[in-house]
Structures are given as C-alpha cells and as structure tokens.
C-alpha cells in the first residue's frame, strides 16, 4: 500500500489567534512607575527640650496657597522662583561660615558669617499651606534633594577619586542586584561616610491651616 503523506495542518489562523492575544495584552498593559523620591518621616514622639538652632543656620522655605515660594535666610526674606531654588540651597549649604569648632573643612562657599556654619549645622526647613498643590511640593522637594545630591557628588568625587563615579552613581551601583557582595560592602562604607559628612537635615513644619 502506498504511503500517504500526512495532511498539513492549516496554520492560516495562527496569525489571528496571535493578534487576539496581542490586543489583549496591549490593552491591559500599564507600564507601572515604580520610582520616586524616597523620604523618611520623623517619628511621632517629640523630645521635650527644644533644640536651639542659630537663625543663620536655617534655610526657611514657605510655599503659600498660590504655589509661590518664599525664602527666609541670613536675615532676609524674598520671593524666589523654584528654578533658582537649587542654586540658592547649594550656596547656603556650602557656605561654611563657621569658625573654631564649627569650621567647615570641605565647604567651598563664600564663608558669609550671616549664612550657615557647616554641612552638619545647616538645616533646610519647609512649610506649606494646606492648599498648596502637590506638584509644586514635589518640585520643591526635588530641588532640595538635587542640592544635597550635588554636594554629595562633589564630596564623593573628592574623597574617592579612584572610583571614578559620583554619589548618585555609587548609590545606584549599591542597589544594583548584579553588584557583588564584596563591592557592595565597600561601597556601603563610602556612602555612609559621605552621608554623615553631608547629612540631609531637612525638616517639615506642620502646614498652616487656613
């Protein structure tokens, strides 16, 4: 008996099935955002004694209900634009006006006696109104973090020139799962050192109720 060839399966509708699946996944896909600004809230219990902070060490920001930004520092008050905030914050943090025990070793600022003493003493405080819009708040937060990152990058490069990366890159490498545990441990020490050198002293006051 002659051997019959097996009939070929008709694959013409395969494209249709694939299209159907494709459209289903196209519709259901949402590229999730899973990145953002990490912050830490202050714990609830408050210490009884007030900490005394010199006025010159505070960089006081206030966002009002019309999303305008007021800055009070070094004895002067003014309205500033959010785009100028980063530069002013860096100038303030990097001032290094302290003398004696408060002298700042690595500050490169103008050493204005009316502005901050050193990285450790300088505090940025932010107060917003209940009617302030969230995107303005995020923009302000972003600029403040950017100012800290700018200084941390500079200090990281100065302290560890052999690594050939800045603070942000080092932090990224640290959280990268592909980095080996050995490198991670080394990076952690260095990151901590810079974090203590340029601490993020950022305080948020309770918003004004209207």
């Amino acid at each position, binding site marked *: 008996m002659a051997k019959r060839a097996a009939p070929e399966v008709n694959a013409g509708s395969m494209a249709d099935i694939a299209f159907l699946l494709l459209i289903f*996944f196209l519709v259901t896909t949402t590229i999730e*955002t899973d990145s*953002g600004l990490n912050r830490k809230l202050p714990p609830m219990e408050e210490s009884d004694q007030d900490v005394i902070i010199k006025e010159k060490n505070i960089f006081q920001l206030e966002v009002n209900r019309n999303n305008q930004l007021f800055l009070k520092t070094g004895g002067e008050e003014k309205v500033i634009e959010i785009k100028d905030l980063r530069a002013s914050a860096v100038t303030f943090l990097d001032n290094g006006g302290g003398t004696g025990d408060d002298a700042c070793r690595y500050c490169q600022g103008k050493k204005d006696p009316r502005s901050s003493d050193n990285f450790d003493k300088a505090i940025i405080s932010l107060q917003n109104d209940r009617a302030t819009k969230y*995107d303005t708040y995020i923009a302000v*937060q972003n600029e403040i973090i950017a100012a800290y990152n700018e200084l941390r990058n500079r200090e990281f490069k100065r302290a560890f020139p052999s690594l050939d990366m800045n603070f942000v890159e080092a932090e990224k490498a640290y959280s990268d799962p592909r980095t080996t545990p050995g490198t991670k441990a080394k990076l952690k020490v260095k990151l901590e050192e810079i974090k203590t050198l340029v601490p993020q002293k950022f305080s948020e006051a309770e918003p004004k109720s209207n």
Partner: protein
Amino acid sequence: MSKFKKKKGGEMPAVNTASLPDIVFMLLFFFMVATVMRQNTLMIENKLPQADQIEKLDKKSLVMYIYAGKPSTNYKSQYGSEARIQLNDKFADVSDIAAFIAAERASKREEEVPFLTTALKVDSDANMGLVTDIKQELRKVNALKINYTTRKGDALEGLKQ
C-alpha cells in the same frame, strides 16, 4: 510559442504573509513580558508629578500603595470632585489608613516588616492638606519610610503643564 503565452497571463503575485505570525508573536511576547497586572483598579485620576532625583523601589512585594486624587468621571456623581484616598479597591477615609497599614503588616513575614515602604501615588492636582493628613496618619502608626512616586522627567517642566 507556448513559452511566450505563459508570461502573458502573469498577474501581480500575492504578498507573502507567512512571516506575519512571527512578527505578531514577537510583539506579543514583548507585551507579555512587559506587562505588570494591575493590583488595584484605580477609581481616581492619577497623573503623577515629575521629578528627576528619583530612586527605584526595588522590592515590589515590600511596598504598600496609597492612592489619592480626584474621583474619576464615573464616580464623580457619587463621591464628589474633592481629592480622596483610595486603599486597595475602595475609597477610604484618612482614619482607615492605620487599619490598612496594620493589615498589610500582618500579611508580611515578621522580619520583613521594618523594610516596608509606603508609596504615595498622589495626583499632581491634589492639595497638600490631604497629603499631610496621610503623612500624619503614617507617623502615628510608625510607618516612616515613604516614597513619593513620580514619573521621571524635569520637575520644573512638569509644573508648567
């Protein structure tokens, strides 16, 4: 003679579509891999603000999501147009946050609890009053690690829109 006749009858050959399934499959696989199934159906508008100093949230399982924003058009008549909080699949009040955090903590292993992060997915049009209330509530239950979820982009550009 017959040689010439054959050519005369020739029409436009049909385009070969045999490779079409391959292309479609390639796209299909891309979307299948890139898809993250949404855990929560959003009942609010959620246009996140932009920022550029962002860090990635690495452990997806250790994140608690709190959404806030105006109710979307379907729910406007029922819930009004003021910005509201959404926890899991329903609208919630500020006072529900403590219970929500407690439930999330209970569902995780004990050693993971200190690493839990709260991601605030707040619409850029929301008022800070609501966000502050959420933050106060989180402080009360000692959930101090938070993340303001944002899109990547220039923060100042985002403001102008």
